[in-house]
């Protein structure tokens, strides 16, 4: 499956400046692994040492928080959009 991954600007610098990436996988976790394989410096910003999401980085699959839909095991379909939002505190 191929999906689009949107990164916040705080993380795009770690993906060669790209805010929108293509990724493949059958689950959100596989898609994230595909992204971190290609951009290894994103790894510690997207997943913890156990490969799980941090509590301060939220993954939205087609605008729904994956925590309520299986987390990284949530299955994805062709054309899905994964939006990654990181906590920021500036004001």
């Amino acid at each position: 499956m191929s999906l689009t991954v949107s990164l916040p600007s705080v993380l795009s610098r770690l993906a060669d400046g790209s805010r929108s990436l293509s990724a493949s996988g059958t689950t959100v976790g596989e898609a994230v692994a595909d992204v971190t394989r290609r951009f290894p410096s994103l790894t510690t910003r997207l997943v913890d040492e156990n490969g799980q999401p941090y509590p301060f980085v939220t993954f939205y699959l087609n605008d729904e928080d994956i925590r309520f839909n299986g987390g990284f095991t949530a299955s994805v379909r062709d054309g899905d959009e994964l939006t990654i939002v990181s906590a920021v505190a500036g004001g």
Partner: protein
Amino acid sequence: MTATLAAPVPRSRVAPTLDRDELLRYGRHLLLPEVAIDGQRKLKSARVLVVGAGGLGSPAALYLAAAGVGTIGLVDFDIVEVTNLQRQLLHGTRDVGRSKLDSARDRLHDANPHVKLELHATRLTAANALTIIREYDIVLDGTDNFATRYLVNDACVLLGKPNVYGSIFRFDGQVSIFATEDGPCYRCIYPEPPPPGLVPSCAEGGVLGVLPGLVGTAQATEAIKLILGIGTPLTGRLLLVNALDAEFRSVRVRRDPACPACGTRELQTLIDYDQFCATSGGDGAGLDAVPQIEPRELAIRRASGEAIQLIDVREPHEWEIGRIDGATLIPLHRLRERLRELDASAPTAVYCKGGTRSALATRDLLDAGFRRVWNVSGGILRWSREVDSDIPEY
């Protein structure tokens, strides 16, 4: 579509009348059937607290004042610096070196002398937040650090005050409304802050000067809609502003039943937010200044026969999902009243889902005189990954 939120301004508060000057000043509002005289009187009777007179607070407070919000409270303790002027429109070059509140008072009074300003020249802390926020109908979060954001969130949840949230970094902004009766709160989206240093502040990472204009204005818009009871509020949605690509979109956010603030409501008092934010780790350890024990070490010591008292401080519905054999369920908010059931002289390990609640519990037990207490690092999730994969992750 009409807003479904309860009106934040108490109905018992008598809406003031408008004098001739005000009728003229607000003429463009009065032409809108959705506002009209009744709405303008609601605005005049409203009390909105703006936390932070900086990038977000500037446009928000200016528009709230211009719109005729009757009482605006401002919380800030900073001095105007020249580096603020790229985005903080409440302050001008001649204000550099003045207190932000003095500068804001002058600017807002000029924008609308009918508005009553209440200046709180202090850092918002766990000691004063409830007292200050209690006096307002709506809070607008324009702070610049995680500790104060969690503080504002928790205080608003405890007091039942809508929290119109905005935050910015570089070219991105976020806006939502938290702590409404049925909606999510900040902790539902971000259960724990990033470890210190992982997410730079605007001072470290920069911010496009106009971005707080976009986001703070969106916050003011939401606050005004709440007061008037019109439109569709941002409750349950997180507006994402991408200034670089000119994209505005929203994602759905939900109340997390396990949220300690608005879900389980185990968080019944404000905590030490500096400590909470200084010690939260990427593994979700939270308050990791307390003694920790690795799941594998705990498993080995129990297997070797060491009598370790094991306490699960999660909620019963989480307990039903899975538990560590031999544990006793005592939800965090019940811990203090059930201390008598525990042996303070026995070595004790405490766990929750990810390690944050159990860190609080560990601290409480230490405070209560327990001598040998450990927080199970990473909670039952890490236990599931490293010791017993039969326990489901959730």
